[in-house]
């Protein structure tokens, strides 16, 4: 039972934070949003820091670090509301390392680690909402391998990524494929999302693809749970920053001749925000610490964490805007962007109601942190 960070983890955090403070100020970010929500040079800078290699095994030129290390870095990404999808490198590394054939791993993992290849999860379909077992995209075996016919939505940086992890039905069962954006028949259509980051529609028509695993659903669940743990950590980073900014504002802003921090109604609201932040941080730790557990235990833990995080994100985001008053609803000020970031994060890889349904369905006679 130990919740201290190691010295190495502290150094990792410091390095990520220094980069955010220096290279990813709010002004930098605004420029990135205006540039379409994704800049490859920023992703390359994250790679140069070694962050895209975090969870890639050492055998494939990665750092071979774990879920808690990834969490530490994602908190800092949240602090800066970094648009470029570092979480996708965590997902791809985890899924390929666990499910990919040796040749696929050798082909892709070193390039993911170096940042040369941006590989993103492309699983969202129109009729699935947050259900992972719902899939209409189809794969076909051909003499040369496989082809995919698929339509996926909200693919992170989808018109800029180099390759996609795509679930598709193979003989009626979900399998997971790796599809290159340069493959014949692949088209993408990019757009911005709520928080200013970039996504795309992805369509593939009889496009050649590589089979990652026939255990597609299990691999997709791992991918989404890894993404969820990253969402939790990122949200904690955002909320931590929101609380600091809001506390400063309450102490500076004067109304009726006094700092508004002197009003108890506002003080109690901030205390409630602190409560939500610390519950969220606790459950973010819990999510990352359970990420390598057997699937049932992992899935239940992630769902629990996402219910807490969802409540916290909603409350902290909404109340931060409220406590700032008019300035809180302007585009000029950072808090409105943090609010939008939290709103999008809550709906990424399942919203709170979806995860509550998962917790509800998975309840056992006993419950606690020590559940197996």
């Amino acid at each position, binding site marked *: 039972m130990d919740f201290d960070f190691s010295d190495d983890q502290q150094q990792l955090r410091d390095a990520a934070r220094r980069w955010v403070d220096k290279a990813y100020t709010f002004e930098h970010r605004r420029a990135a949003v205006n540039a379409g929500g994704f800049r490859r040079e920023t992703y390359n800078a994250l790679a140069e820091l070694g962050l895209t290699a975090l969870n890639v095994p050492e055998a494939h030129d990665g750092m071979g670090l774990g879920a808690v290390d990834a969490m530490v870095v994602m908190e800092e990404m949240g602090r800066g509301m970094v648009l470029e999808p570092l979480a996708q490198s965590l997902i791809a590394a985890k899924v390929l390392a666990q499910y990919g054939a040796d040749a696929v791993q050798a082909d892709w993992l070193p390039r993911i680690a170096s940042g040369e290849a941006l590989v993103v999860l492309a699983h969202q379909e129109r009729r699935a909402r947050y259900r992972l077992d719902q899939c209409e995209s189809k794969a076909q075996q051909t003499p040369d391998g496989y082809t995919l016919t698929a339509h996926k939505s909200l693919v992170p940086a989808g018109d800029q990524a180099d390759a996609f992890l795509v679930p598709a039905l193979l003989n009626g069962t979900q399998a997971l494929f790796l599809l290159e954006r340069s493959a014949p028949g692949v088209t993408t259509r990019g757009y911005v999302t709520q928080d200013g980051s970039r996504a795309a529609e992805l369509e593939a028509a009889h496009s050649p693809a590589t089979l990652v695993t026939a255990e597609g659903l299990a691999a997709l669940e791992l991918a989404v749970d890894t993404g969820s743990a990253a969402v939790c950590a990122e949200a904690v980073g955002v909320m931590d920053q929101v609380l600091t900014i809001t506390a400063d504002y309450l102490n500076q802003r004067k109304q009726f001749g006094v700092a508004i921090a002197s009003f108890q109604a506002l*003080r109690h609201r901030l205390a409630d925000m602190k409560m939500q932040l*610390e519950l969220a941080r606790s459950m973010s730790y819990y999510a990352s*610490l359970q990420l390598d557990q057997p699937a049932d235990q992992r899935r239940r833990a992630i769902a629990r964490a996402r219910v807490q995080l969802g409540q916290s994100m909603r409350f902290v985001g909404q109340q931060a805007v409220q406590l700032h008053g008019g300035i809180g609803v302007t585009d000029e000020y950072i808090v409105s962007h943090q609010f939008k970031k939290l709103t999008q994060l809550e709906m990424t890889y399942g919203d709170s109601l979806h995860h509550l349904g998962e917790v509800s369905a998975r309840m056992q006679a*006993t419950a606690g942190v020590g559940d197996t």
Partner: protein
Amino acid sequence: MDLAYTPEEQAFREEVRAWLNDHLDPALATKVREDQRLSRDDIQGWAKVLGKKGWLAYGWPQAFGGPGWGAVQKHVFAEELARAGAPGIVPFGPVMVAPVIMAFGTPEQQKRFLPGIASGEVWWSQGYSEPGSGSDLASVKTRAERQGDHYIVNGQKTWTTLGQHGDWMFNLVRTSNEGKPQTGISFLLLDMKSPGVTVRPIKLLDGECEVNEVFFDNVKVPADQLIGEENKGWTYAKHLLAHERTNIADVNRSKRELERLKRIAKQEGVWEDQRFRDQIALLEVDIVALEMLVLRVLSAEKSGKNSLDIAGLLKIKGSEIQQRYTELMMLAAGPYSLPFIEEAMAAGWQGDFPGGEVANAPLASRYFNMRKTTIYGGSNEVQRNIVAQTLLG
């Protein structure tokens, strides 16, 4: 960072569990698990069993006869006690006054009072609140006037939990009206059998007399029962409040009661009702989140870093959860939580409870009782003030 307990902590858990298996009377555990009313003998009998093993003083350092456990061991111990259905340890002696006596008492006072607390022989009560002093504790008016080698105490305390059973009482009393209200308070121990002490139980909304008024009419208290220095009592009281902060979250009992809520929901046919079940799921998430919060505080204590500013949150969340599970239990029983038959809330009642499920009898009473949790120990609004103070200055 590691969620798992160490092998030593696991072994310790097994040791506690095995001992409880041998020493906790199953009939008593059933009473606790079913929320049937406990007598003084139920509570003190168990305290003496723990005392004989040396575990009633579970938070004490070895120098004072305690086991000298660390923060995580204490938590594991409390978790096993709750899990087994042991009656809660009445905290006023071993958890609250004892650390003050250890820190600020004279060696003679330590020798005189600590053994009786550790053994469970002497039942202590807390004399803090007064009719005019609730959250604003520094406004206490009960007066202690020094006359030779005695103090003469006059005034009134209230909300004295289980004071009807008390042998001794620790009190905040006013010894000076000079300066700030906090600077004129002293910490005085008194024998509740002293002439001039009157205890009057207060019947509460759940039908029980869990608290009391205590009146002092010219009570003569030897001056050697003053802890530390005169007018420094506020400092000692704060020390007491800072002690065992994770205790008040009571997450271990909440875990046990969540299990019970699920049993009741199944029994009453609402387990398959998605609307109801989702409410239980929300509570489950709350309890796991609170447990993580508690474990973070313990871990920080263990590693000595203790930079966490979250301890104040534990009381708020813990008390809200306690209220919520009792509320959901009552709602699960629905119309069959309406009969309020006091005799049926005791163990062994042979009557015919409406609906045929006597385990439903105490549910409403428990819900009513738990309204206290967001009021006592510094109301949750006061707790929010404290949290805000750390954030805003």
